[in-house]
């Protein structure tokens, strides 16, 4: 029950961020993919089942907000949540490099999938790909890793569970 409430609160916070603070960045051409970032963080923390559930619910809410193509974000974020959750058990989740790479890959996949629905025609692809699938994921990954590092430092403890038995560390 607590997990479900946390999931709902997480979704509401992400959607509010997206429609208020991050909308100002997006209007200047800086697309911070908070949907993919939040799904990756949730999947790293709670595993594949909750990661996929979070991605699906968040994606569905974002689809309703976008008014076109219901299921577009939901499908991509479900798979991002599931794959990240599966990988989480084999990776050093507290590593900034791991988080950077995961957010980068997840954002690139999510943006490539959603950009495919937005492109008006083949001539638009090079510019659209550069902005959405290259620049967007890099900016999201860098700022996401920075946010996670800042939160970890501020809280003074690991963000993700089981860090004490991560590979490479003594038991």
């Amino acid at each position, binding site marked *: 029950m607590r997990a479900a409430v946390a999931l709902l609160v997480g979704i509401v916070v992400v959607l509010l961020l997206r429609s208020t603070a991050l*909308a100002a960045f997006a209007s200047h051409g800086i697309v911070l993919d908070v949907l993919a970032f939040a799904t990756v963080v949730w999947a790293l923390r709670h595993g594949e089942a909750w990661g996929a559930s979070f991605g699906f619910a968040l994606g569905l809410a974002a*689809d309703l907000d976008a008014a076109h193509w219901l*299921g577009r974000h939901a499908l991509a974020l479900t798979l991002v949540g599931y794959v990240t959750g599966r990988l989480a058990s084999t990776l050093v989740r507290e590593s900034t490099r791991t988080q950077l790479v995961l957010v980068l890959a997840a954002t690139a996949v999510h943006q490539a999938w959603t950009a495919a629905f937005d492109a*008006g025609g083949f001539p*638009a692809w090079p510019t659209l790909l550069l902005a959405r699938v290259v620049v967007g994921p890099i900016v999201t990954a860098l700022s996401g890793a920075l946010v996670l590092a800042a939160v970890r430092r501020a809280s003074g403890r690991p963000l993700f569970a089981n860090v004490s038995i991560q590979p490479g560390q003594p038991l």
Partner: protein
Amino acid sequence: MARVLPLAERRGSILVASYVAVSVLLLLVGDRLPQSALRGAGTVLFAPLDRWVLAGERLAAAWRENGELHRRLAALELESSRLRSLGAEDQRLRQQLGLPGHHDPALKPVEILALSGEPMPVAAILSAGRHQGLHLGDAVVTSDGLVGRISEVYAFSSRVALLTDPNAPVACEVESTGVLGIVRCMPALEPTLMLTTVPFADTVRVGERVWTSGLSRRYPRGIPVGRVIRVGADPNGLTQAIVLAPAARLSRLRHVFVIPGPAPLEATP
């Protein structure tokens, strides 16, 4: 395969398969679902939260805007007195020529609660709806120019299709020459506002202002829409490709004004 997986993983796989199946189903048949009602429910839930999140930012912005508005008020008072005398002259001339007089549109101020769409916002949620007297199709403007039109109305909020929505074209004319065209946003590359269907026989220059022509019942005539920044040829070679800079700052909307339409959109022919 499923039999060799542990129980928890099997459940996880079934869960993900269900989500994927639902998503694909929605992609295929989602257009037939009552999306407007679902979005309306979502807007009711999110409107108070949006207001709360935006309160601090809006307070600071209001403080800055107050100073700027005082300066503009003084300038507009001077311009207003000049326009009053010109208006009286215009009325006298119209009476002599037997032409109908002008009517100033009524403006309803409303607040923007949220913007949606990336990289450019294509829709906005307004803090007023059916109970505040808004109707489907009403024009939405700022002091700078046209913002869009109301595309969905809920009880206490409504959704605006901005000029950047490719599905919200506007009948327009060039201010100085009266050249007619349709302004629409082209979604390819980065979203671009364009004046389309203008033949090569018509002359349009960079810097000219474009406003609503009044040929569609949705928008009254004379609302600024944009300014011409580039003139070229359409890829098909049949018409001109005229790029506009929008008059209203669509990415920095806080407050807008709704102009009630002549009649609800459903009733228009």
